[in-house]
């Protein structure tokens, strides 16, 4: 695989992660569907997984960066699988709105699994690791945009989580922003 193709695929992967995190914000702000604690931890899992892709864009592709993505996605998959299993028994209800028949935590598990598979496929070609110099000096618009949006979403989640949960742990079923002194959504 040419190194430029590897760079492009990493940028597209990070844009996909950006899109997922942005959709979570849209669901929270537009549809007023506040995230539960496990939902917030799944967002953190996406951030942990996307971290490796961001490192690939800044420092060039390395197996350790793909390892970062695989480990982050594995933790996220464990969290989303746990939440799916909480609701898998018929009659135990669900959390949040369903999209195309599946709830967000189920979609999250599928996304985490696809990230692990995608990284495994990218790791198959060693030619991308031959490039000695980092790429950041020649970052073009697509990788730079993906990185900046990823940072903005990570920082946005810091403030969003603070607003929902305050300084402590989140309520099991949040219905209001705790930091706004219980302002209903």
């Amino acid at each position, binding site marked *: 695989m040419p190194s430029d193709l590897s760079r492009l695929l990493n940028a597209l992967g990070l844009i996909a992660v950006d899109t997922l995190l942005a959709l979570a914000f849209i669901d929270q702000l537009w549809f007023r569907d506040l995230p*539960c*604690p*496990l939902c*917030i*931890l799944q*967002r*953190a*899992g996406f*951030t*942990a997984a996307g*971290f490796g892709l*961001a*490192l690939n864009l*800044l*420092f060039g592709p390395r197996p*350790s960066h793909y390892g*970062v993505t695989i*480990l*982050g996605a594995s*933790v996220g998959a*464990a*969290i989303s699988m*746990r939440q799916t299993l*909480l*609701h898998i028994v018929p*009659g*135990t*209800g*669900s*959390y949040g709105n369903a999209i195309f028949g599946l709830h967000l935590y189920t979609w999250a598990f599928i996304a985490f699994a696809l990230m692990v598979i995608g990284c495994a496929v990218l790791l198959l070609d060693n030619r991308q690791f031959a490039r000695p110099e980092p790429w*950041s000096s020649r970052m073009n618009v697509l990788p730079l945009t993906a*990185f900046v949006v*990823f*940072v903005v979403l*990570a*920082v946005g*989640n*810091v*403030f969003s*989580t*603070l607003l*929902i*949960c305050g*300084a*402590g*742990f*989140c309520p*099991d*079923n949040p219905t209001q922003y705790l930091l706004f002194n219980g302002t209903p959504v």
Partner: protein
Amino acid sequence: MMSLPFLLFACGLGAAWLRQRGAAMGFWVAGLVVLLVLFRVHMSDVLNIAL
């Protein structure tokens, strides 16, 4: 507390932007450990949903 993983990952991204790869990896490891601890705390949450 729940925002701590995001804060650590954001610090790691900042360190990566400043070319501090070791620090970035350190922030990422710390964020992942905190994430796992928070998962352990919340994995047995009682469901409080309308059936």
